[in-house]
């Protein structure tokens, strides 16, 4: 459906309150489609549609064996998003820290402020 990279696929899957609700429910344990549909005023088919999106994003897997085919939460894509956000924040935090120092350096009078090396 979409050629988006996995990270974007995860973000897309998360961009819907029902899907987030489903994930929250699954975080408490595996559940059937009926279980998942229960809290919502929504048909089983509608919930299945959301599950499809979550499955495609790799956030949910479904057992093939058991007859009720329980849905299971897969943590890896969430972890990838959290990792990316962490990296992103760290990158800018570090950059802005460096910019703070650099701005100070830019404003420093260009006199002979050479640091003397004190031999100890």
């Amino acid at each position: 459906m979409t050629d988006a990279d996995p990270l974007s696929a995860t973000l897309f899957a998360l961009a819907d309150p029902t899907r987030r609700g489903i994930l929250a429910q699954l975080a408490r344990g595996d559940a059937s489609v009926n279980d998942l549909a229960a809290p919502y005023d929504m048909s089983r088919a509608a919930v299945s549609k959301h599950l499809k999106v979550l499955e495609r994003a790799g956030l949910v897997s479904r057992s093939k064996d058991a007859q009720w085919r329980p849905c299971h939460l897969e943590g890896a894509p969430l972890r990838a998003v959290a990792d990316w956000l962490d990296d992103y924040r760290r990158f800018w935090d570090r950059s802005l820290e460096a910019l703070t120092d650099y701005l100070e350096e830019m404003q420093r009078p260009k006199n002979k402020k050479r640091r003397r090396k004190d031999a100890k």
Partner: protein
Amino acid sequence: MSDVEIDSSSKEDAVIVMTRTFDAPRDLVWKAFTDPKHVARWFGGRGFVTTLCEMDVRPGGIWKHVMRMPNGEDLVMEVVFLEVVKPERLVWENVDHGKRAPGGHPTSRMTVTLEAVGKKTKWTLVTRFGSIEERDAANRIGFANVIAEGTEKLAEVLAE
């Protein structure tokens, strides 16, 4: 002193907001941020060494930046400027919009606003996520919420 935060209040947009106040006049901050000669000196921060920085700061212009990461690998960034309002507003987004290699960054649009506060300058960086297909969804639902909720749930999941 570090004022980086994920804004969890916005329901309008897909955002991460980072703010910081610099002890420098706005014109100088703008210069440090838009002149490649200066940008090469701080972008990426400690441990990141800029090996290439080309900026064509005007709408449609490209900013290409290559830096050597602490692990020895190159980090290549290429973005296109969408809005340039000297000295107060700069907007850019990934140049490979919607056609990223797997594992790449999520598509994002970044807006930096510089606000003069006396002799200081307040910096605000707003990052919005979403590719072409995702934009509708992103505009409807606050990504900030997604992020906040997502990470909370994540904590639960990881605790298992």
